[in-house]
């Protein structure tokens, strides 16, 4: 009996060790590209192709990118485009999700699926007609044009996640709030918004990441006036050589806002994307 108990303890300890070991290995595996990118940012072009981790760190790349090019302009413009896209998505997507959850209209499921299907289609498939249309109506190379077309990649996820949240809230809660004397907008702000908040925050963050990282749309639809970070990073590939160090610097800084935002709302992220968190 005693022996069995001891064995059990040993197994449990081994299990814990194994689990942590596995997670560590996975962590290394997942984080390695990021680490490699950061390392590259500090390497000089001459040492770039060394596969060993020995090099003399240098800030030349940072100097080249941050001071000698208009990187900050691109960073700011990216922020405007991605932020604008998320704001529009939230303002338009939440009512849309509410309608899809609450009202009964013809072809409702088809509409919902159509919205989701925007996410399936490869961007490259629709880019050519959009390019031609934008040229004609003067939206090419404008903030508005990009923000508009970004809805294709930011809106579907938010609508589907938030719709699930609305469906979990019973209609009676809204009716109760109305009987308590609240107008429709107060019902929304005081009763519904707190309940959908986790989903809204999580899907809003993902929408921001999608928009921030978007490459195809700004590549084709923006020119000299507006440049996003993803496009700017291309500039360090010149005709004679590729400045990997400078690309790495550009990418490292580009990742920062996403990492910071994600860290802040980490706890919403996991809870927010697992449905049914509002069961009362």
């Amino acid at each position, binding site marked *: 009996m005693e022996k069995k108990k001891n064995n059990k303890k040993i197994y449990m300890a081994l299990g814990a060790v194994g689990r942590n070991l596995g997670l560590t290995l996975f962590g290394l595996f997942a984080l390695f590209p990021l680490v490699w990118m950061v390392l590259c940012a500090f390497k000089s072009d001459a040492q770039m192709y060394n596969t060993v981790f020995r090099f003399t760190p240098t800030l030349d790349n940072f100097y080249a990118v941050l001071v000698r090019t208009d990187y900050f302009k691109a960073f700011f413009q990216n922020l405007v485009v991605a932020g604008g896209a998320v704001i529009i998505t939230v303002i338009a997507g939440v009512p849309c999700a509410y309608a899809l959850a609450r009202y009964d209209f013809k072809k409702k499921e088809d509409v919902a699926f159509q919205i989701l299907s925007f996410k399936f289609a490869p961007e490259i498939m629709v880019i050519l007609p959009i390019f031609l249309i934008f040229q004609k109506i003067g939206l090419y190379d404008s903030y508005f044009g990009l923000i508009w077309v970004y809805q294709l990649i930011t809106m579907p996820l938010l609508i589907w996640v938030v719709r699930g949240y609305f469906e979990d809230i019973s209609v*009676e*809660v809204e*009716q109760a709030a109305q*009987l*308590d*004397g*609240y107008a429709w907008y*107060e019902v929304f702000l005081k009763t519904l918004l707190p309940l959908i908040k986790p989903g809204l925050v999580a899907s809003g963050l993902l929408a921001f990441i999608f928009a921030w990282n978007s490459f195809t749309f700004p590549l084709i639809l923006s020119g000299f006036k507006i440049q996003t970070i993803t496009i700017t990073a291309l500039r360090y590939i010149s005709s004679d050589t590729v400045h990997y160090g400078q690309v790495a610097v550009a990418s490292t800084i580009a990742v920062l806002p996403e990492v910071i935002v994600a860290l802040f709302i980490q706890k919403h992220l996991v809870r927010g994307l697992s449905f049914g968190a509002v069961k009362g």
Partner: protein
Amino acid sequence: MAQIELCNITKKYKKNTALDDISITIKDNEFFVLFGPAGAGKTTLLKIIAGAEFPQEGLVKIDGKIVNHMESKDRNISMVFENYALYPNLTVYDNIASPMRSRLYRKDENDIKTAVNKVTELMKINHLLERKPSQLSNGQRQRVALGRCLVRNPSVFLMDEPLAHLDAKLRHMMRGELKEMQTSINSTTIYVTHDYTEAMSLADRIAVLNKGKIVQLGTAQEMYFTPRNEFVACLFGEPEINIIEAQIYHESEKVYCKAFNQDVFLYPGTDVGKILTGEERSRVDMGIRGTDIEIAFERPGDDWLEGCVYANEPIGNKVIMTLTAAGNKIAITCPNDTKADLDATVYFKINMDKVLFFDSETKEFITRSDMKKYKKGEETDT
């Protein structure tokens, strides 16, 4: 304080008719109970009065004013929902305080505190004020919902099975509290329930609903003693009323019935006899309550029927005995010391003065003895 009139209300969900041409007038300060089986349309009717649902046809009037197009917040109604509809993100205190914090019914925080404390003490939930609804049991949630409804002083209270999930003892107590409150604060209350004891003990008037229609409208006494048809008779009373088919025989001036294929003559009261003679019928359904049957273990006389013990359930203050006779099951309420072996032969006698007679085809009520006594209140009510 308000009178509610519903005129020809019809509500359909797609092809299903939830309410079919309902017209009721609920008087000022009345405690009105909507009673019926599940899916009868009781909740829909409440929601239409509350303004949470809208009828396709018909008018809803509160105090003579048509409110079909009035938003529910402006109707000055407070309601307990069947599924509680508490705000999951707020504490019990904030839930109950919510109606008094809206722009329409705003009060200052001190008044809110007194009001909430008063109502939570009444509901015995004053130790739970800081909890969230998810940390409560169903019975506690229901009391919070009831508290949120009662904290305000609206013109109409709507209550959708507000006691359904409380345990028996608490339900009994709350029933008393509600009745007491009703008389002290003078407000119109519409109360939905499927528990006939609640309906009978609370109601000034009851409306029995079935499949979107009103079957009968009247006082609890009328429902119990002169139900309009067998359906209503079966809803009220525990154990359920026994419906027995009987044959009618006319013999000179007298009428008698026979049931259970037994050669025992059952003579209805003379007033009933007259009505039954007047109509040419050979069969009739007799509705007999369990309390109106006597039981004996040896045949005391010729007018006693014979049955066989099928089940014997002691429930504290009484024993419900189920007999079988000619394929019919009959539930009888006996004194609590009655003991009988299963399958034993026993004898029973029906108190013919208490029997309700129904048409065996249409299941409609025909008559009972001493009708005058039970119909007394009718003229004033209609």
